[in-house]
């Protein structure tokens, strides 16, 4: 069998509910109670999940709001640490592409490309070699020289996708952002991702779009109630997911050319 590039074994993740600590003042006034609360009040977002993603796979993750999909991606990206279990990652990971992408609002689009590149481990020279390609793909025109705080959410997604698709990462992580791009850009993304299909790039795609899963993914995982409900063929998984959500699903109506 091919080598797994992402491997989760019995991984659990819970979030502390720090809501009760308003600040250092309150904490100092009530140290013992605050400490007890930190230990006790935790919210379990993922319980004992295990899965593997192999090199070159396009792996889709679906599930309801709050199921723990973004949490899973965060752990793959290495920004969140699991409470229990083992995670093994092999390969260079792209910055997590999600809404409110990892851009600094005061820097221009171009400067943010460099920032993202060095953060993911490239040198400035390597990034500059790719710069024109990225700028061209994003089709942002003169906005590439403006600070990203003036970008629309679609423009952010354009820049974000252009960056991660061109800085040749080995593992791409995408958390449902492509839906905010216009149809033309979605088409472009789809083509780009199709071109990855034959390559060695591994992709993990979190999405609420049935079409994305069917068109792009080679395998899919359905997370329900903080545990893995199903892993397997994307069409099968989507069928069961739709059934459980009381949404009619018909493979023939899924547009083969959309995200």
């Amino acid at each position, binding site marked *: 069998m091919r080598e797994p590039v992402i491997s989760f074994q019995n991984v659990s993740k819970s979030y502390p509910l720090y809501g009760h600590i308003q*600040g250092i003042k309150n904490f100092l006034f009530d140290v013992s109670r605050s400490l007890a609360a930190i230990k006790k009040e935790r919210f379990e977002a993922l319980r004992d999940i295990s899965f593997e993603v192999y090199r070159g796979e396009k792996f889709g993750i679906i599930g309801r709001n709050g199921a723990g999909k973004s949490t899973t991606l965060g752990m793959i990206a290495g920004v969140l640490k699991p409470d229990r279990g083992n995670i093994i990652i092999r390969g260079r990971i792209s910055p997590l592409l999600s809404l409110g992408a990892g851009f600094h609002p005061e820097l221009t689009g171009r400067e943010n490309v460099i920032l993202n590149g060095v953060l993911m481990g490239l040198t400035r020279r390597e990034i500059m070699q790719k710069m024109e390609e990225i700028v061209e793909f994003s089709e942002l025109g003169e906005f590439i020289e403006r600070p990203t705080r003036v970008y629309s959410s679609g423009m952010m997604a354009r820049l974000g996708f252009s960056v991660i698709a061109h800085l040749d990462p080995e593992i791409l992580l995408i958390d449902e952002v492509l839906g905010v791009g216009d149809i033309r850009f979605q088409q472009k993304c789809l083509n780009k991702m199709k071109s990855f299909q034959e390559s060695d790039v591994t992709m993990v795609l979190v999405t609420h779009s049935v079409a994305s899963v069917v068109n792009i993914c080679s395998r899919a995982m359905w997370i329900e109630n903080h545990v893995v409900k199903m892993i397997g063929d994307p069409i099968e998984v989507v069928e069961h997911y739709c059934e459980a959500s009381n949404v009619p699903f018909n493979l023939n109506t899924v547009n083969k050319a959309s995200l």
Partner: protein
Amino acid sequence: MNAGLSETSQGGERLGVSSRLATDVGKVKHFGNQRSLDNYKDLVIVLLQKELKVRYKNKLLGYLWSLANPLASALVFYIAFQVFLRVSEPNYALFLIAGLFPWQWLSNSVNSAPNLFVGSGSIIKKVNFPRNIVPLCAVLNHMIHFIITIPVILLFMVIYRQSPSLSWIYGFPILLTIQFVMAYGIALGLSSINLFFRDLERLTGVIMNFLFYFTPIIYDVDRFPERYRDLLIVINPATPLMYNWRKLILHGQLEPLYVLLSILYAILFFAIGFSIYKKLSCKFAELL
């Protein structure tokens, strides 16, 4: 559960030794993501540029701003103490500047520290990079601003007919290093803690203000009452350092005992700050 774990033996031998322990804490292994030295260097450069850009937008204006603040406070103290109170310190304007400029670097670093990680939230949540580079670049940025104000100190020395000493060649690097390590340690600790207690900024503001007047910056150490002088110098981490800065700038000398004392304080702050950071850093993304 145990079966799942034994399969991970390729991940490391340690897992096999105590599989029960391994289930109690999350383990993450990441291969093929080593950063090159070139990347570290570029990371620092890019973050430094970002810092400068975000703070000032424009390089020349940024330079003027970093001068305006300490010069304005020097002017205020000059008017209050020399003109109104008529203190007898010779060359009081130069005396003030030799204390206020280095202090500005320390206090700016400490005061801006609480918001560092909060301000970089958008990238911390998306990419796994060594987060301690964020405070590193912030403190470096303040240090660079101090260094580029040195010509102004020289200008005042010319006005007061004094000349820089050769001992600056070794004195400046020594004090710069000590203060850098100290400020970096404090910034690491404060920026990490502030993710848990978001009101830390007010507290540091109060403490730094308090510290300012208890450190011989606008007055000389011998204004401390004779009986408590040694105590006041030793218990205030900023005093030995600020004392030496002025002594170096005005007289071209360092007080070895105080150098030693400030090195100890710098190491202490760095050790505390770094261990706080180490302990909390894995929780950053979920708090932002």
